C-alpha cells in the first residue's frame, strides 16, 4: 500500500472518530475540540489532494475563527456542565435510524453508479494558490466582490440581533429617515 493510501485511511479514520465524538460527547467544549480535530483531518485530506490553498483557508477560517467563536459563546453561557434535559427516546432513536438509513441508501445508490471507479489524478496543479487566485480574480470577481457585501450584511445583522432593547424614555425622540 502506498503512503498516500495509508495517509488517506488514517485521515479518514481520524475524521470519522472526530465526527462521532462531536455528536456523542456530553460536554459541549469537548464537542468543539472534536470538531477541530475533524477540521484538521479534512485539511489533511485537502493537502493530500493537492488543494493547498483550500487546506490553509480551511484551517484559518474554520478551525481558527469559527471554532473560536463557538468557544466564546459556550464560555459566555457557562455550559461547562451539560444540563441538557433528556430528549424523547423515540425521537432520538428515530433520528439515528433515519440518518443511518439515509447513509445506507445513498451508499447503495452510489455504489452502482458509473463513475465510481474513476481513479483520481495525482499531482494536478489545480489547487495551487497561484492558479486558483488567477481564476478567482478573472472569472469569479463579481461573486468575490458580492461576498464582501454579504459579510457586511452579516455583520450588521449580527450586531442588530445582539442589541439590547432600548430603555423607554419619557420624552419622545422621533427618528425620521
Amino acid at each position, binding site marked *: 500500500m502506498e503512503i498516500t493510501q495509508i495517509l488517506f485511511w488514517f485521515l479518514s479514520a481520524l475524521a470519522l472518530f472526530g465526527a462521532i465524538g462531536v455528536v456523542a460527547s456530553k460536554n459541549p467544549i469537548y464537542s468543539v475540540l472534536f470538531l477541530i480535530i475533524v477540521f484538521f483531518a479534512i485539511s489533511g485530506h485537502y493537502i493530500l489532494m493537492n488543494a493547498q490553498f483550500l487546506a490553509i483557508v480551511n484551517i484559518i477560517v474554520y478551525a481558527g475563527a469559527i471554532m473560536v467563536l463557538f468557544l466564546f459563546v459556550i464560555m459566555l453561557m457557562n455550559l461547562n456542565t451539560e444540563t441538557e434535559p433528556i*430528549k424523547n427516546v423515540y*425521537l432520538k432513536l*428515530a*433520528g439515528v435510524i*433515519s*440518518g443511518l*438509513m*439515509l447513509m445506507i*441508501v*445513498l451508499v*447503495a*445508490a452510489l455504489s452502482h453508479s458509473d463513475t465510481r471507479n474513476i481513479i483520481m489524478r495525482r499531482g494536478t496543479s489545480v489547487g495551487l494558490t497561484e492558479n486558483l487566485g488567477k481564476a478567482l480574480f478573472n472569472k469569479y470577481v463579481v461573486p468575490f466582490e458580492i461576498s464582501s457585501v454579504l459579510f457586511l450584511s452579516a455583520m450588521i445583522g449580527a450586531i442588530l440581533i445582539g442589541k439590547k432593547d432600548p430603555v423607554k424614555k419619557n420624552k419622545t425622540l422621533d427618528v425620521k429617515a
Partner: protein
Amino acid sequence: MDAIQLIYLVPLFPLIGCLINGLGRNILPKKIVGIIGSLVVFIPFCISVLIFLTVSKEGFITQNISYFDFIHVGKLSIPFEFQIDQLTSIFLLIITGVGFLIHVYSVSYMKDETQSGFGRYFSYMNLFVFSMLLLVLGGNYVIMYIGWEGVGLCSYLLIGFWFKDQANNDAGKKAFIMNRIGDVGFLLAVFWMVSSFGTVSYHELFNSQNGIITSISTINSPVIVGITLLLFVGAIGKSAQIPLYTWLPDAMAGPTPVSALIHAATMVTAGVYMVARSNIMYSLAPISMAGVASIGLTTAIVAAIIALKQNDIKKVLAYSTVSQLGYMFLGLGVGAYSAAVFHVMTHAFFKGLLFLAAGSVIHAMGGEQDITKMGGLGKKMKITYVTFFIACLAISGIPPFSGFFSKDAILSATYAQSPILYILGLGGALLTAFYMFRLMAMTFNGKFRGTAEQEQHIHESSAIMTIPLIILAILATICGFIGLPEIFAKNGNKIDDFLSPVFAHSNQILTTKGIPHQTEWILVIVSALLVIIVSIWTWNKFKNYASSTPGENGFVKAIKNKFYVDEAYDFLFVKPYRSLSAFLNNIFDKKGIDGIVNGVGRGVNYGSRQLRLLQSGQVGSYLLLMVIGLLILFIIQLFTK
C-alpha cells in the same frame, strides 16, 4: 274547419284550466274559479259534439293525427299521436258531458271550502279531465299509459283532498298503490308488445288492411295471451276488479262529486276502454276472454253481496260500481264489446246521478252518511228523490229505462256463451235491484230516524246542484233507446251499428252466434219480471225500516264486514311489507349506510386530530421529517425504475 283538426284543443282546455286554477287559487275569487273550471270542460264538450257529428257521417275512416316524436330510440318510434274513431268519440262525449255536469254541481257542493281549497279542487278536477281525455284520445299504448297514470295520480290527489284527516290520506294511498300494482301488468304488456311487434301504435297494430295483429290468424298464441292477460291486470287495478277492488270503497273518503266523476263515470271505465280498444287481441285469445269474463262475473256477484248489508250511502254505491264494472268486463269477456261500451255509457249516467243525488242528501243531512239515521227525506227533497228513484229503476234494469237495455245486451250475449253464466248474471242483477231499492227505501221513505237538529237542516239543494241531477235523469231515461236490440226493432241497435267498424274484425273472428229470437224474448220477459218483483218486495220490506234487529248470524256479519277481505290483505301483504320496511330502515339504512357515512366523517375527524399533532413546533421533529422525506425521495428515485 274540419272538427278533427281541432282535436288538440280538447285536452288543451282542461290543462289550461288546471294551470290557471292551480296557480291562481289564492288570487282568483271562487266564482271565477268555478266558471273557468266548468268552462274548460264545456268547450271540449262542444268540440266533442262536432267530432261526433263528423264521425257519424257515412264512410268515416279512422283518423290518426301525430304531433311530434315522443320517443325515438333506434328503430322504435313512438310519436305523440291521437286516434279518432267511433269508440273515441263516444268516450269523449261521456267524459266531457258528464264531467261538465259534475263540475257545475261541484261549484255548489264545494262552496264551503276556503278560496285556496276551492281553486285546488278545480285544478285537480281539470287535471283529471285532461288525463282522461289523453287516455282515450291516445293513438298508441304509451299515450294511453300517460293518461292512465295521470288519472291514477288525480284520483290520489282528489281522494285525499281533505288531507288534514289522516284517514283520507290513507285511502288515497291505498287507491294509488293498488292502481300501481295493476300498472305493472300494463307496463309489462307494453314492453312485451314493443319487443314482439316493434310498435305500440293502434293504427299499425289494428288497422284492417295491414295491421300487425289483424294479420295474425292463430288462435291463443302464447304471446297474445300473455299480452292480453297482462293488460287485463292493469284493468283489474284501475277498474277495481277482484282482487284489487278494496280501494274503491275506501275512496269514498273524497268529496262526493269526485266519487261521481272518477269512480262512477270515467276513471274506472278506463279499463273497459282499454280492453275494447284491444278487442282484436282479445278475440284472438279466447283464454284471456274466459279469464276476463270469470273475474268480471265473480266481482259482480261478490260486490253485490257485500253491498246488501252496508249502511253508508256512499259505500253501497261504491260496491255497486264495482259490481257494475264486473258486468262490463263480463260483457267484454263474452265478446259483446259494443254492449259493454253501451253499459259504460248508461252506467255513467245513472251512477253519476246516484252519486250526485247522494251528495245532495249528505249536504242536506249536514254530513251524515249513515242510512240508518236517515229516512223520510223524500217529502222534503222532492227533486232529489225523484231523480234518485229514476236512477234506481235504471240500474236495476227495469224497462224502459236505459239500464235495462244495456244489461240485457250483456246478459243475452252471456247466455249465448253459456246458460250457467247467464243464471249467475241474472242473480247478480236481482241482487242489484235488492240493494238499490233497500238504499232508496231506507233513505227516502218511512220516518226520519236522525236527530232533531238534523231534521231542521234538511232542505232541497240549490238549483246549481239539482239541474245536473235532472239532466242526468233525463239521459238515464232515454238513452236506452239508442241500443234497442233486434227483437224490439229492426236496426234499432244504433250504438252497435255505430261502433261496428271498431269491432268488425273481432266479430269476424269470434264464433259465438246470436240466440234465436224466441229465446231472447223469453229471457227478456223473465228477467224484467223477476227484477220488478224483487224491487217491489224490497221496497215494501224497507220502507218502514226500524233499527236493525240484534243477533245477526255469522254470514250476515261476514257480509257486513266485507268478507274481511281488507283484514286479509292487511295480514298477508301489508304487515310483512311493513316489517320488511322497518327492517331495512333500522338495520340497513340507519346502521349500515348511516354508519358508513358517519363513520367516514368520524374517521376524517380522528385522522385530522392525529395529523395535527405533527405540527408540534419542535424544530427537531421538523428536521426529522425532512430527513425522512429526503430518504423516501431517494429511495423512490434511485431504486424504482
